Protein backbone atom coordinates (compact mmCIF):
# COMPACT_ATOMS: atom_id res chain seq x y z
CA UNK A 1 0.00 0.00 0.00
CA UNK A 2 1.48 3.36 -0.99
CA UNK A 3 0.96 6.43 1.13
CA UNK A 4 -1.26 8.99 -0.68
CA UNK A 5 1.05 11.95 -0.16
CA UNK A 6 4.02 9.94 -1.38
CA UNK A 7 2.07 8.73 -4.41
CA UNK A 8 1.06 12.30 -5.26
CA UNK A 9 4.64 13.49 -4.92
CA UNK A 10 6.00 10.69 -7.14
CA UNK A 11 3.42 11.20 -9.88
CA UNK A 12 3.45 14.99 -9.58
CA UNK A 13 6.42 17.20 -8.72
CA UNK A 14 9.01 14.43 -8.98
CA UNK A 15 8.14 13.91 -12.65
CA UNK A 16 8.94 17.54 -13.43
CA UNK A 17 12.02 17.49 -11.21
CA UNK A 18 13.34 14.46 -13.09
CA UNK A 19 12.70 16.12 -16.46
CA UNK A 20 14.53 19.26 -15.34
CA UNK A 21 17.48 17.27 -13.93
CA UNK A 22 17.62 15.21 -17.12
CA UNK A 23 17.59 18.20 -19.48
CA UNK A 24 19.90 20.44 -17.45
CA UNK A 25 22.26 17.49 -16.92
CA UNK A 26 22.44 16.89 -20.66
CA UNK A 27 23.15 20.58 -21.29
CA UNK A 28 25.85 20.55 -18.60
CA UNK A 29 27.58 17.45 -20.00
CA UNK A 30 27.44 18.84 -23.55
CA UNK A 31 28.90 22.13 -22.34
CA UNK A 32 31.61 20.26 -20.45
CA UNK A 33 32.49 18.35 -23.56
CA UNK A 34 32.81 21.49 -25.66
CA UNK A 35 34.93 23.14 -22.96
CA UNK A 36 37.32 20.16 -23.13
CA UNK A 37 37.74 20.39 -26.88
CA UNK A 38 38.66 23.10 -29.34
CA UNK A 39 38.18 23.71 -33.00
CA UNK A 40 41.03 22.35 -35.07
CA UNK A 41 41.95 25.00 -37.66
CA UNK A 42 43.89 22.47 -39.73
CA UNK A 43 40.88 20.37 -40.56
CA UNK A 44 38.92 21.45 -43.58
CA UNK A 45 35.79 19.49 -44.25
CA UNK A 46 36.06 18.19 -47.76
CA UNK A 47 33.36 15.66 -48.46
CA UNK A 48 34.05 13.09 -51.10
CA UNK A 49 31.88 13.40 -54.22
CA UNK A 50 28.92 11.07 -54.13
CA UNK A 51 29.38 7.99 -56.24
CA UNK A 52 26.58 6.54 -58.28
CA UNK A 53 25.27 3.23 -57.01
CA UNK A 54 26.94 0.46 -58.96
CA UNK A 55 27.94 -3.15 -58.40
CA UNK A 56 31.43 -1.98 -57.37
CA UNK A 57 30.12 0.54 -54.86
CA UNK A 58 27.82 -2.10 -53.31
CA UNK A 59 30.70 -4.60 -53.12
CA UNK A 60 32.89 -1.92 -51.55
CA UNK A 61 30.18 -1.16 -48.97
CA UNK A 62 29.72 -4.86 -48.13
CA UNK A 63 33.47 -5.41 -47.72
CA UNK A 64 33.79 -2.31 -45.58
CA UNK A 65 30.88 -3.43 -43.37
CA UNK A 66 32.36 -6.92 -42.98
CA UNK A 67 35.53 -5.37 -41.58
CA UNK A 68 33.68 -2.93 -39.31
CA UNK A 69 32.45 -3.56 -35.78
CA UNK A 70 29.05 -4.47 -37.27
CA UNK A 71 30.66 -7.20 -39.35
CA UNK A 72 32.71 -8.57 -36.49
CA UNK A 73 29.90 -8.50 -33.89
CA UNK A 74 26.69 -8.54 -35.96
CA UNK A 75 24.45 -9.99 -33.24
CA UNK A 76 25.53 -7.49 -30.60
CA UNK A 77 25.20 -4.57 -33.02
CA UNK A 78 21.69 -5.61 -34.08
CA UNK A 79 20.59 -6.28 -30.49
CA UNK A 80 22.03 -3.03 -29.12
CA UNK A 81 20.51 -0.99 -31.97
CA UNK A 82 17.08 -2.55 -31.48
CA UNK A 83 17.38 -2.13 -27.69
CA UNK A 84 18.21 1.58 -27.94
CA UNK A 85 15.49 2.27 -30.52
CA UNK A 86 12.88 0.52 -28.34
CA UNK A 87 14.21 2.32 -25.25
CA UNK A 88 13.45 5.69 -26.87
CA UNK A 89 10.35 5.09 -28.97
CA UNK A 90 8.36 2.81 -26.66
CA UNK A 91 7.90 5.34 -23.81
CA UNK A 92 7.79 8.35 -26.15
CA UNK A 93 4.95 7.05 -28.30
CA UNK A 94 3.03 5.14 -25.66
CA UNK A 95 -0.67 6.01 -25.67
CA UNK A 96 -0.97 6.25 -21.88
CA UNK A 97 2.06 8.57 -21.61
CA UNK A 98 0.68 10.80 -24.33
CA UNK A 99 -2.71 10.99 -22.64
CA UNK A 100 -1.01 12.11 -19.42
CA UNK A 101 1.06 14.62 -21.36
CA UNK A 102 -2.07 15.96 -23.03
CA UNK A 103 -3.80 16.31 -19.66
CA UNK A 104 -0.78 18.09 -18.16
CA UNK A 105 0.25 20.53 -20.88
CA UNK A 106 -2.33 20.14 -23.63
CA UNK A 107 0.21 18.74 -26.04
CA UNK A 108 0.98 15.19 -27.01
CA UNK A 109 2.98 13.20 -29.51
CA UNK A 110 1.85 10.62 -32.00
CA UNK A 111 0.95 7.31 -30.32
CA UNK A 112 1.48 3.70 -31.33
CA UNK A 113 -1.25 1.19 -30.64
CA UNK A 114 -1.05 -0.38 -27.19
CA UNK A 115 -0.33 -3.76 -28.74
CA UNK A 116 2.59 -2.32 -30.67
CA UNK A 117 4.18 -0.77 -27.55
CA UNK A 118 3.61 -4.04 -25.75
CA UNK A 119 5.62 -5.85 -28.45
CA UNK A 120 8.35 -3.19 -28.32
CA UNK A 121 8.59 -3.69 -24.55
CA UNK A 122 8.92 -7.45 -24.94
CA UNK A 123 11.62 -6.99 -27.60
CA UNK A 124 13.49 -4.58 -25.32
CA UNK A 125 13.35 -7.01 -22.41
CA UNK A 126 14.65 -9.84 -24.61
CA UNK A 127 17.55 -7.57 -25.65
CA UNK A 128 18.14 -6.81 -21.95
CA UNK A 129 18.31 -10.55 -21.26
CA UNK A 130 20.91 -10.88 -24.02
CA UNK A 131 23.02 -8.18 -22.32
CA UNK A 132 22.66 -10.03 -19.03
CA UNK A 133 23.74 -13.27 -20.71
CA UNK A 134 26.86 -11.53 -22.11
CA UNK A 135 27.73 -10.10 -18.71
CA UNK A 136 27.40 -13.49 -17.07
CA UNK A 137 28.85 -15.87 -19.62
CA UNK A 138 31.02 -14.13 -22.24
CA UNK A 139 34.61 -14.10 -20.85
CA UNK A 140 35.70 -10.73 -22.30
CA UNK A 141 32.57 -9.01 -20.93
CA UNK A 142 32.72 -10.84 -17.62
CA UNK A 143 36.32 -9.69 -17.13
CA UNK A 144 35.31 -6.03 -16.90
CA UNK A 145 31.86 -6.44 -15.35
CA UNK A 146 31.24 -5.33 -11.79
CA UNK A 147 28.08 -4.91 -9.70
CA UNK A 148 27.57 -1.40 -11.08
CA UNK A 149 26.96 -2.80 -14.59
CA UNK A 150 24.13 -4.96 -13.28
CA UNK A 151 22.62 -1.95 -11.48
CA UNK A 152 22.79 0.07 -14.70
CA UNK A 153 21.09 -2.73 -16.63
CA UNK A 154 18.42 -2.93 -13.95
CA UNK A 155 17.83 0.86 -13.98
CA UNK A 156 17.49 0.76 -17.79
CA UNK A 157 15.02 -2.12 -17.84
CA UNK A 158 13.10 -1.52 -14.58
CA UNK A 159 10.64 1.03 -16.10
CA UNK A 160 9.79 -1.50 -18.81
CA UNK A 161 9.49 -4.49 -16.47
CA UNK A 162 7.21 -2.56 -14.08
CA UNK A 163 5.32 -0.97 -16.99
CA UNK A 164 4.67 -4.38 -18.51
CA UNK A 165 3.48 -5.79 -15.16
CA UNK A 166 1.27 -2.76 -14.54
CA UNK A 167 -0.29 -2.80 -18.03
CA UNK A 168 -1.14 -6.48 -17.83
CA UNK A 169 -2.12 -6.14 -14.15
CA UNK A 170 -0.01 -9.15 -13.24
CA UNK A 171 0.06 -8.23 -9.56
CA UNK A 172 -3.02 -7.48 -7.42
CA UNK A 173 -1.73 -4.16 -6.02
CA UNK A 174 -1.89 -1.98 -9.14
CA UNK A 175 -1.13 1.23 -7.25
CA UNK A 176 2.10 -0.18 -5.87
CA UNK A 177 3.36 -1.37 -9.24
CA UNK A 178 2.42 1.84 -11.05
CA UNK A 179 4.21 3.84 -8.32
CA UNK A 180 7.29 1.67 -8.81
CA UNK A 181 6.97 2.17 -12.57
CA UNK A 182 6.86 5.97 -12.28
CA UNK A 183 9.72 5.94 -9.78
CA UNK A 184 11.83 3.67 -11.98
CA UNK A 185 11.31 6.00 -14.95
CA UNK A 186 12.24 9.05 -12.87
CA UNK A 187 15.37 7.37 -11.52
CA UNK A 188 16.43 6.46 -15.04
CA UNK A 189 15.88 9.99 -16.36
CA UNK A 190 17.82 11.56 -13.48
CA UNK A 191 20.61 9.00 -13.82
CA UNK A 192 21.26 9.68 -17.52
CA UNK A 193 23.60 12.68 -17.21
CA UNK A 194 25.49 11.45 -14.15
CA UNK A 195 26.05 7.73 -14.65
CA UNK A 196 27.18 5.39 -17.42
CA UNK A 197 24.07 6.43 -19.32
CA UNK A 198 26.02 9.56 -20.19
CA UNK A 199 27.12 7.61 -23.27
CA UNK A 200 23.83 8.88 -24.68
CA UNK A 201 25.44 12.34 -25.04
CA UNK A 202 28.98 11.10 -25.42
CA UNK A 203 28.21 8.98 -28.48
CA UNK A 204 26.62 11.74 -30.53
CA UNK A 205 28.94 14.55 -29.52
CA UNK A 206 32.15 12.54 -29.90
CA UNK A 207 31.44 10.62 -33.03
CA UNK A 208 30.17 13.69 -34.87
CA UNK A 209 32.60 16.36 -33.73
CA UNK A 210 36.00 14.89 -32.87
CA UNK A 211 38.32 14.39 -35.81
CA UNK A 212 39.27 10.77 -36.32
CA UNK A 213 39.08 8.19 -39.02
CA UNK A 214 35.87 6.97 -37.44
CA UNK A 215 34.13 10.36 -37.37
CA UNK A 216 30.54 10.22 -38.44
CA UNK A 217 30.28 13.94 -39.10
CA UNK A 218 32.59 16.79 -39.93
CA UNK A 219 34.99 15.91 -37.12
CA UNK A 220 36.53 19.37 -37.00
CA UNK A 221 37.22 19.50 -33.26
CA UNK A 222 40.11 18.16 -31.29
CA UNK A 223 40.96 17.60 -27.63
Amino acid at each position, binding site marked *: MVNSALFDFIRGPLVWISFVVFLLGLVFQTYRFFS*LTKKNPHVIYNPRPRKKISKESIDHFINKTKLSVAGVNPV*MIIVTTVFHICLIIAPLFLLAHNLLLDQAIGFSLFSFSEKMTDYLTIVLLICGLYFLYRRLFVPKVR*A*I*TDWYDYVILLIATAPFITGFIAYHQLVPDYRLIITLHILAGEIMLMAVPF*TKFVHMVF*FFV*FRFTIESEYSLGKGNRTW
Partner: protein
Amino acid sequence: MAKINTAGVDTDRVKERLDQYKTKMKLSLKACAHCTLCAESCFLYMARDKDPKYTPSYKFINSIGILYKKKGMVDKVTLGEIRDNVWERCALCTRCYCPLGINIPEMLALARSICREQGVYPRYDRE
Protein backbone atom coordinates in the same frame (compact mmCIF):
# COMPACT_ATOMS: atom_id res chain seq x y z
CA MET B 1 40.47 -0.50 5.39
CA ALA B 2 44.05 -1.70 5.06
CA LYS B 3 46.62 1.05 4.79
CA ILE B 4 48.34 1.20 1.41
CA ASN B 5 52.11 1.04 1.44
CA THR B 6 52.93 3.84 -0.98
CA ALA B 7 56.67 3.73 -0.26
CA GLY B 8 58.71 4.56 -3.34
CA VAL B 9 55.76 6.22 -5.07
CA ASP B 10 55.43 10.00 -5.31
CA THR B 11 51.65 9.97 -4.82
CA ASP B 12 51.43 13.76 -4.91
CA ARG B 13 52.97 13.79 -8.36
CA VAL B 14 50.66 10.97 -9.53
CA LYS B 15 47.68 12.94 -8.23
CA GLU B 16 48.94 16.09 -9.93
CA ARG B 17 49.20 14.27 -13.27
CA LEU B 18 45.73 12.80 -12.84
CA ASP B 19 44.29 16.21 -11.98
CA GLN B 20 45.59 17.61 -15.26
CA TYR B 21 43.35 15.14 -17.13
CA LYS B 22 40.66 14.74 -14.50
CA THR B 23 37.58 15.87 -16.41
CA LYS B 24 38.45 13.99 -19.58
CA MET B 25 39.43 10.89 -17.66
CA LYS B 26 36.28 10.97 -15.58
CA LEU B 27 34.07 11.48 -18.62
CA SER B 28 35.81 8.69 -20.54
CA LEU B 29 35.53 6.23 -17.63
CA LYS B 30 31.91 7.16 -17.16
CA ALA B 31 31.09 6.87 -20.86
CA CYS B 32 32.61 3.40 -21.17
CA ALA B 33 29.55 1.16 -21.32
CA HIS B 34 31.65 -1.98 -20.74
CA CYS B 35 30.33 -3.33 -24.05
CA THR B 36 33.72 -4.82 -25.11
CA LEU B 37 33.02 -4.07 -28.76
CA CYS B 38 36.59 -2.75 -28.82
CA ALA B 39 38.04 -6.25 -28.23
CA GLU B 40 38.40 -7.47 -31.80
CA SER B 41 40.05 -4.24 -32.92
CA CYS B 42 43.11 -5.15 -30.82
CA PHE B 43 45.50 -7.36 -32.76
CA LEU B 44 47.07 -8.60 -29.53
CA TYR B 45 43.66 -9.76 -28.27
CA MET B 46 43.17 -11.69 -31.49
CA ALA B 47 46.71 -13.08 -31.41
CA ARG B 48 46.50 -14.22 -27.77
CA ASP B 49 43.52 -16.56 -28.22
CA LYS B 50 41.07 -13.82 -27.28
CA ASP B 51 42.41 -13.53 -23.74
CA PRO B 52 40.06 -11.01 -22.01
CA LYS B 53 43.06 -9.27 -20.43
CA TYR B 54 44.00 -7.97 -23.87
CA THR B 55 40.65 -6.23 -24.43
CA PRO B 56 41.35 -2.48 -24.81
CA SER B 57 38.63 -1.60 -22.31
CA TYR B 58 40.12 -4.05 -19.78
CA LYS B 59 43.51 -2.34 -20.13
CA PHE B 60 41.91 1.10 -19.86
CA ILE B 61 39.83 0.24 -16.77
CA ASN B 62 42.70 -1.58 -15.10
CA SER B 63 45.18 1.24 -15.56
CA ILE B 64 43.67 4.71 -15.61
CA GLY B 65 40.52 3.39 -13.95
CA ILE B 66 42.50 2.15 -10.95
CA LEU B 67 44.63 5.29 -10.70
CA TYR B 68 41.52 7.45 -10.81
CA LYS B 69 39.58 5.31 -8.34
CA LYS B 70 42.44 5.30 -5.85
CA LYS B 71 43.09 9.02 -6.46
CA GLY B 72 46.74 8.26 -7.15
CA MET B 73 47.26 6.53 -3.79
CA VAL B 74 48.84 3.40 -5.27
CA ASP B 75 51.68 1.15 -4.24
CA LYS B 76 54.50 -0.24 -6.35
CA VAL B 77 52.73 -3.58 -6.79
CA THR B 78 49.67 -1.87 -8.28
CA LEU B 79 51.88 0.21 -10.55
CA GLY B 80 53.55 -3.04 -11.62
CA GLU B 81 50.16 -4.49 -12.55
CA ILE B 82 49.32 -1.33 -14.46
CA ARG B 83 52.66 -1.62 -16.22
CA ASP B 84 51.73 -5.11 -17.41
CA ASN B 85 48.46 -3.79 -18.79
CA VAL B 86 49.85 -0.77 -20.60
CA TRP B 87 53.16 -2.16 -21.81
CA GLU B 88 53.10 -5.95 -21.93
CA ARG B 89 49.53 -6.15 -23.24
CA CYS B 90 49.54 -3.05 -25.42
CA ALA B 91 51.74 -1.98 -28.31
CA LEU B 92 50.13 1.46 -28.37
CA CYS B 93 49.43 0.98 -32.07
CA THR B 94 46.35 3.23 -31.64
CA ARG B 95 44.18 0.90 -33.69
CA CYS B 96 41.64 0.21 -30.95
CA TYR B 97 38.16 1.24 -31.89
CA CYS B 98 35.60 2.41 -29.36
CA PRO B 99 32.04 2.68 -30.74
CA LEU B 100 31.37 5.48 -28.28
CA GLY B 101 34.45 7.44 -29.29
CA ILE B 102 36.59 7.10 -26.16
CA ASN B 103 40.24 7.82 -26.89
CA ILE B 104 41.63 4.62 -25.33
CA PRO B 105 45.22 4.98 -26.66
CA GLU B 106 45.55 8.43 -25.13
CA MET B 107 44.41 7.11 -21.76
CA LEU B 108 46.86 4.20 -21.93
CA ALA B 109 49.65 6.58 -22.94
CA LEU B 110 48.84 8.69 -19.90
CA ALA B 111 49.06 5.62 -17.65
CA ARG B 112 52.41 4.77 -19.23
CA SER B 113 53.65 8.27 -18.63
CA ILE B 114 52.63 8.16 -14.95
CA CYS B 115 54.26 4.75 -14.45
CA ARG B 116 57.44 5.89 -16.17
CA GLU B 117 57.66 8.95 -13.92
CA GLN B 118 57.52 6.61 -10.93
CA GLY B 119 60.28 4.42 -12.32
CA VAL B 120 57.95 1.57 -13.21
CA TYR B 121 58.54 0.51 -16.80
CA PRO B 122 59.85 -2.53 -18.66
CA ARG B 123 63.61 -2.92 -18.45
CA TYR B 124 64.27 -4.97 -21.53
CA ASP B 125 68.00 -4.96 -20.79
CA ARG B 126 67.39 -6.67 -17.44
CA GLU B 127 64.28 -8.79 -17.89
